[in-house]
């Protein structure tokens, strides 16, 4: 019986096994990398808006408090996006003829809310609540970053489950005194962990149940 495979086939077989292993690893790495890439997570990617509303200008420059616009952040699950009327408390007198604000004026005239593009959007199967975080001493900037430097809004965190859990496992790493919640330039002190443990106790943070699945998936 003649030999079916040439000698060379041995090498081809070995090389192809190696190639498959390499390909799978590379594929896996690529998948992982793209999953965590800014393209997928939208982290640090400024989001275009119908009106280029600038937090840098309104908060950083003019010093308007977050709650002037995001009224419900202290008492409800959602922070709220300001209605057109809120812009008009100032822009009925300021920049009234600027084309840049035309969509706002049109929204007021036609009684149709502005359509802002969402920057943060959790999947609908996740339950999130602003008021509990704010009252237990988690500051806006821990989750939303240096808002005072954002001409357009972007995300600084993935909002993936891993990110939520990193804090829920040990809130002492991030918790701050309640008076500092609205201070965007707050930095953790050198003794953050010690102070954090004390605050967790003082504010009665329910640390034991924070990683229960039912906390966020109800």
């Amino acid at each position: 019986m003649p030999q079916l495979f040439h000698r060379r086939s041995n090498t081809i077989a070995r090389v192809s096994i190696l190639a498959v292993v390499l390909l799978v690893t590379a594929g896996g790495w690529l998948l992982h990398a793209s999953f965590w890439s800014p393209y997928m997570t939208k982290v640090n990617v400024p989001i275009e808006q119908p009106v280029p509303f600038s937090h840098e200008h309104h908060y950083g420059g003019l010093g308007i408090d977050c709650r002037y616009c995001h009224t419900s952040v202290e008492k409800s699950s959602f922070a709220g996006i300001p209605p057109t009327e809120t812009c008009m408390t100032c822009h009925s007198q300021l920049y009234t003829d600027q084309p840049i604000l035309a969509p706002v004026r049109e929204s007021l005239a036609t009684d149709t809310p502005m359509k802002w593009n969402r920057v943060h959007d959790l999947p609908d199967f996740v339950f999130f609540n602003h008021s509990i975080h704010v009252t237990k001493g988690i500051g806006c900037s821990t989750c939303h970053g240096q808002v005072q430097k954002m001409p357009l809004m972007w995300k600084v965190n993935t909002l993936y489950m891993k990110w939520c859990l990193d804090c829920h496992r040990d809130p002492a790493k991030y918790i701050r005194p309640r008076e500092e919640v609205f201070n965007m330039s707050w930095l953790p002190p050198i003794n953050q962990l010690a102070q954090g443990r004390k605050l967790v106790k003082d504010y009665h943070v329910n640390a034991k149940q924070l990683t229960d699945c039912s906390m966020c998936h109800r």
Partner: protein
Amino acid sequence: MYSQPRSDPLEPSKFFKNGAASRPLVPGTVARGHLDADQAFYQGAIGTNFVEEFPMPVTRQVLERGRERYNIYCSVCHGAIGDGNGMIPQRGYPHPPSYHIDRLRQAPVGHYYDVITHGYGVMYSYASRVEPADRWAITAYIRALQLSQNSRLDDLPPNERVKLEAQNK
């Protein structure tokens, strides 16, 4: 699952004409527990007469709440001490009057409540963002500001006076 067939707050909807899923309240709606029958507290006036006295006790807590709310909603225009020199007028918005002019110092507290609730001239209403108890708290804080800009040394309690005089030496 990522986007379930339900409407969350602030979501758009093709169903309604103005494109918003959330519906405005029907005029005349009264929420449970919000009959708000106490005219002095909820209108700031009995009939057309502004109330002259606060319809609730003014405590330190109320003043501190008032300061916090004032600094969120009012100080951008009226300034931290109420002189009408906030950041927004500095950028071209009409200057509001100072709270320390005689007319406003003599105005009844009900007038302040009314201005926050219904607006005044070019100033919009803040009723949708400042609830009644907070409107009174802000009013109380404005009264404190007025006092602070118009007090004399003799008005201070003796121990505070000694402290201040010691600082000035």
